[in-house]
Structure formats: structure tokens, C-alpha cells
């Protein structure tokens, strides 16, 4: 045990990532640095080509930075994708049980935990449903439950609500906020929707594109619970949108 209490759950320091070599070299990330405190909700906001998927891949441990370092202090990182990515041959319960199966959790324990997690995302009793029998919003909640089944302390979410209709997305914002508060996980939430970022985040990391760099970090000092159509949310969103547009228009020439 270290004597110093680490106030950071995630430390990303000078991370760069390049793919290929020579004339085909593509730099996805360039010197990206920011931290997240334990239990903090950080939104990563950026247009196409900001290297967000690369960054999440590095955080999840399936990719390595070309230089720089990522430190999660030995915490477990769970990942949730835009497309719910449920395995179509498994039931909702089977999907949630999968990460536990991979870790070797005994069957009886898996079943108990699946029921708990389904209740958490308000889908109790639907363990035997197949993904195709569920709506888009329900699939994303199963996917969220599955991410929690990884018993992760850090949740990486890659535009998880991007493909949902506005009403469902709005309801799932409430749900995610509730679950985040109840569990105290650290969330890194990637989105290209500025209002969504302001609705959810404690802080917003604005990324520029090609290569991905940290353009600016905003503190969202708005009291929770927030509403996506509240005036102060809209005001901050307008400021950030203006900044994002300025970043994007650099690429037009």
C-alpha cells in the first residue's frame, strides 16, 4: 500500500499513437494528457478522427500507445460499444454472464449476479430474451449490465447512445446517471453530441481531430440532476459547440 492516496483513477500522460510507417503513417493521437478522479464522469468530445476509439482501445488494454503512458492503478476497465454488440446466439442473461464466464465465476454465482444486474437496468425477468426480441434501448441496457458484469472500476463508453432515438436516449441518460451515482464508478464517456456531454459530464475533454489532441478541458459546474433542455446546459453547450466548430473548420482547407 502506498502512503500517498492517489486522487486519480485514470492518468493519461503524453499518449501518442501512430499506425503504419513511411508515407502511409497516420497519427491517431498526439500527446494526449488528462486525468480522471475516482468516481468522476468525464466526457470525451470530438468530431470524426479524434482518435477516441484508439484511446479507448489503449485504456481497455487491447492496444498500446506508441509513446506516453496510461495508468489506471490496477483498476479493471470495462468497455461498452455504440452498437450494443450483444452476441446474437446468447440470451440477454447469457450475454451478461459472459464476462463472468471468461473470468471463471461459478455458474450459481453468475446467475445471482445476472439477476441483480438485470434489476439494476430495470429489465428484471428478461434474462431469457434473445437480443433480437429487445428494442434498441433495451439492448443498450443489457450491454450496460454486461459492462458492469466485468466488475469494472472504470467504465469506457464509446458513443453508447448514438444510435438511439431522442426520447430513449433521454431516459437512458437518467438511468446511466442513477447507476453511476449508485455504483461510484469512474466513467469515460465518448460522444460527439455536445449537449449529451454537458448533460452527463463532470468535466468535458474536447479533442481536436487528425491527430487527436486535447483542445480544451471544460468543467461543468451545473447541479445534478440536469435536464438536457435546461438553459444552463444549453448555454454551456453553445460555448463548447463554437469551440468545436472552430476546431473542425481548420480541416476544411
Amino acid at each position, binding site marked *: 500500500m502506498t502512503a500517498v492516496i492517489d486522487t486519480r483513477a485514470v492518468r493519461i500522460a503524453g499518449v501518442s499513437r501512430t499506425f503504419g510507417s513511411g508515407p502511409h503513417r497516420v497519427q491517431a493521437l498526439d500527446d494526449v494528457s488528462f486525468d480522471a478522479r475516482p468516481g468522476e464522469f468525464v466526457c470525451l468530445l470530438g468530431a470524426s478522427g479524434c482518435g477516441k476509439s484508439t484511446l479507448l*482501445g489503449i485504456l*481497455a*488494454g*487491447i492496444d498500446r500507445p506508441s509513446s506516453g503512458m496510461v495508468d489506471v492503478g*490496477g*483498476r*479493471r*476497465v*470495462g*468497455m461498452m*460499444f455504440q*452498437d450494443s*454488440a450483444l*452476441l*446474437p*446466439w*446468447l440470451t440477454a442473461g447469457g450475454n451478461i454472464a*459472459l*464476462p463472468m*464466464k*471468461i*473470468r471463471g465465476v461459478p455458474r450459481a454465482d453468475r446467475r445471482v449476479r445476472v439477476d*441483480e*444486474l438485470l*434489476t*439494476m437496468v*430495470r*429489465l*428484471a425477468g428478461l434474462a431469457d430474451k*434473445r*437480443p*433480437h*426480441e*429487445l*428494442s*434498441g*434501448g*433495451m439492448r443498450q441496457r443489457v450491454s450496460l449490465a454486461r459492462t*458492469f458484469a*466485468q*466488475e*469494472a*472500476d472504470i467504465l469506457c463508453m464509446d458513443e453508447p447512445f448514438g444510435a438511439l432515438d431522442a*426520447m*430513449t436516449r433521454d*431516459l437512458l441518460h*437518467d*438511468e446511466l446517471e*442513477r447507476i453511476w451515482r*449508485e*455504483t*461510484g*464508478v469512474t466513467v469515460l464517456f465518448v460522444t460527439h453530441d455536445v449537449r449529451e456531454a454537458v448533460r452527463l459530464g463532470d468535466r468535458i475533454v474536447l479533442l481536436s481531430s487528425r491527430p487527436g489532441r486535447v483542445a480544451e478541458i471544460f468543467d461543468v459546474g451545473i447541479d445534478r440532476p440536469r435536464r438536457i433542455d435546461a438553459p444552463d446546459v444549453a448555454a454551456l453547450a453553445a460555448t463548447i459547440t463554437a469551440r468545436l466548430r472552430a476546431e473542425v473548420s481548420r480541416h476544411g482547407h
Partner: protein
Amino acid sequence: MATDTTIGPDTLRGPATTTSTDAALAGLDALETVAAPGRPLALRMWSATWPKLAAVAIFLLLWQIVVWTGWKPTYVLPGPDEALPELGHRVVSGDFWAAFARTMQRAFVGYALAVLIGAVVGLAVSRFALLRTAVGSFITALQTMPSIVWFPLAILLFRLTEGAILFVVVLGAAPSVANGVISGIDYVPPLLTRLGQTMGARGLKLYRLVVAPAALPSVVAGLKQGWAFAWRSLMAGELLVIVPGHPSIGSDLENSRQFLEATGVIASMLTIFAIGVLVDAAFNTVDRRMRARRGLLPEQSG
């Protein structure tokens, strides 16, 4: 560390804390999941059966019409009125079932061996890029080679024995199985592999829990095609390689031809066709069940 995120039972009451979110979410869920009314089993079976029966009836009628036109004398082309009773006589005889058993045994042993070899080769080729470059295209070339061209070599190698037939059946079926495995693995969505990896699955675990089930539809298609090739090779083999004292469906067919028994020839062919239909039905059942589970049947969309 991991226990930090475990949700205590008191936070899990969920619906007890009814909010407007809760109600709205429940309403949306109810609106968006409409269970399709299931039809009774008897009705489903009938609607699957009658088109087949009608097709058989039309085929028999056309056949009978050709016979009635007098295009060929009936001792060369007998009608269904002669061939079907002949088949009926055979089915109740012990000789028929001995020949049937021999043929099916050859088919299953050859097919099982082909599946084993095809799976191993398919896995190896999909895994190692060098191997794919080296032999990947040869597998398809091998598959397109008519099985009959293998027989001269097979007979030289094994003479008129069971071995010669087995050799050709395996060569006929294994490439299809291998190709099914290769394309199955090639077409696994990268997202699913990435998903498995972020959950910590590596190596064999990743294959067992994610890659293999994702590749299954294509593998089943390969198995089905492999069976078709095995069956063709086997029939060619039984006509050409008549192992003394080992009667089979193919050797019965060849015998009937040599004794100019047209009804016997047609009865044997009907048997071969019927086996094809039954095996196809078995594969279709497996395929349909797999698609139903994954929500891929036409009646499940929309």
C-alpha cells in the same frame, strides 16, 4: 478493488423507487417489444408439408405422362406404377437393408473423417497467413475437381477395396468443410472479437466463447455442402469400385443396369434421392433452429 462496484442489495430495489423515468422507460419497453402471435404446430407442419407433397405429385404425373406418350418402351423407361411397387418390394427385403447399412456406414465414416480433416485444415489456414497464401486457393481448386477423376489413382493405390472409396469420399468432402470454417472465421465481425478481448478472453477461450459461435452459420453451410460432395463421391465410388461380397446401394444400381432391369435402376435412384432429401431436411432443421435463435428468420424481421 472490484468489490467497489458491486451493487449492494439495498440499491437494487429498482422499481420500488418509482419515478417518471421508470414509468416512461417501462412504457417504451412495452411499446417496442411486440410478441408475434405463434401459430399452432399442426398448422405450421401442414404449411411446410403440402407444397412438398404437391411437388412430388406433379413430378410423378409428368413422369407418367412421358411414359404414356410411348417415347420409350416400358422395359427401358417404366412408369411410377411399376417402379414404386418395385421399391416397395425391396424395402421389405433384408438385402435392401444390408446394402443400405453398408452405404450409410461408408458415408458416415468418410464424412466424419472429412469433417475432422477439414476442420483442422480450415482452422490452420485461417490462423496462419503464410499457410493461407500457400494453400488457400488450392482448397477451392481441390473442391471443384470432380471426384470421379480421383478414382483411377484410388484404385491403383487401394485396389477394389473399401479404402479406395473412403479415400475419394474424404477428398471430396474435406475441402468444403475447410472452406466453411475459413470463411466463417474470416467473417466474424471485428467488433465481437474486440469485445471478447476487452472482457479478457484470449486464445482458446476467445475461440470457444466468441469466434466459434460467431462462425457457426458458415461452418454449418460448409458441413452441408461437404455432405453433398461426400454423397456424390460415394455414389460414384459405389458404381466404379464394386468390392466383392460387399453389396451397397450403388452396386445394386450397377447390377440392375447390367441385368437390364429398368425398374431396379429407377428404384435404386429413388432410394438415393430419398436419402438426399432426408439428410437435407436434417441440415435444414439445424440451420433453421440456429437462425431462429439469432433472429434471422424472415418472419422475425419487422
